[in-house]
C-alpha cells in the first residue's frame, strides 16, 4: 500500500503524486543452493580409452586432464569431475549415463 499526498505544483493547481513508501515484505528466506558434485565411479567393463574420450566430450577437458581423472577413477574407485549448481550437475550426470558410465550426483557436505 502506498500513501498519497497533495503537492502544490503551480499557483492554483494541485496534483496528487504517490509518495514512495518503503514496502516491507515478509518472505521466507530461500535456502541457498548447496554445491553439488559430479562423481564418476569405477567400472570393470568400460575401456580406459573410452572413459577418457567421454570426459573430453562431456566436460571439454583436454586429453591430459581427462586422463588424470580417468586414472583416478581406475586407481581410487572414483573421481570428482565437476562441482557447482545442481541443475548443470544433473545435466552432466545425464550425459555420462548416456555414455553408460557409472556417475552420481552428490551434495557437498
Amino acid at each position: 500500500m502506498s500513501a498519497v499526498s497533495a503537492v502544490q505544483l503551480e499557483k492554483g493547481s494541485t496534483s496528487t503524486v504517490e509518495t514512495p513508501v518503503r514496502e516491507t515484505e515478509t518472505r521466507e528466506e530461500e535456502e541457498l543452493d548447496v554445491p553439488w558434485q559430479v562423481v564418476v565411479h569405477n567400472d570393470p567393463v568400460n575401456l580406459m580409452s573410452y572413459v577418457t574420450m567421454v570426459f573430453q566430450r562431456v566436460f571439454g577437458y583436454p586429453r591430459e586432464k581427462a586422463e588424470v581423472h580417468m586414472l583416478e577413477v581406475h586407481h581410487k574407485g572414483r573421481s570428482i569431475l565437476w562441482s557447482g549448481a545442481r541443475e548443470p550437475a544433473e545435466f552432466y550426470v545425464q550425459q555420462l549415463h548416456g555414455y553408460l558410465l557409472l556417475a552420481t550426483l552428490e551434495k557437498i557436505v
Partner: protein
Amino acid sequence: MVISCSPRWRKSFDMEICRQGDTLQISDLDPFLAELLRQIPQSTNPEGAPGAEARLFSRPAAEKKICAEWKSYVEPELRRLFRSASETVAADLTQLNGNEKSLRNRTLRIPVEHADAWLNALNQARLVIATKYNFSDEELNDHDRSPIGSRRDLGLFQINFYGFLQEFILREISS
C-alpha cells in the same frame, strides 16, 4: 576399467579392419566373427537380467526424490538413446544377412557418422553380457580365453571382441 582389449585372438580368427575415407571397414570376416557382430543388437537387451537393467539405468544419486524424478524424466530419454544406437547398428548389420556360406569373406562397412552409435551399442552389449555372467575383474582382463567351451567362455570372448572394435573405432574417430 579395462586397459585395452588385445586382439591376440586374431591368431585364430580372420578379419581385416581399417578406415577408408568416411567408412570403417571390417573385411575378410569369417562366419564366426560375422555371427558375433550380428548378435550385437540382441546382446544389448537387458530383459531377463535385472542386474543388467540396473547397470544400464544406474541410480543418479542417493536421494530418493532425485531418483524418482530421474526415473520419470531422464530414464525414458536414455532408453530412447540406447534403442536408437542399437537400431542404427542393426541397420548397418543387414549387410551381413545371409547363410553361413554367404558370410564367408564378407565385408562390413560402417559409416563414420555411425561411430557414436556403434560405440554406444557395443558398450551396452559388453555391460549386459558382463552383468549376466557376473565376470570378475580378473576374467575381464583375460584376453586369451578360448570362446569354445561354454556359453560363459563365449560371453567373455564377445566382451573382448566388442572391446577390440570399440578401441578401433575410438582410435579412428580421434585421429
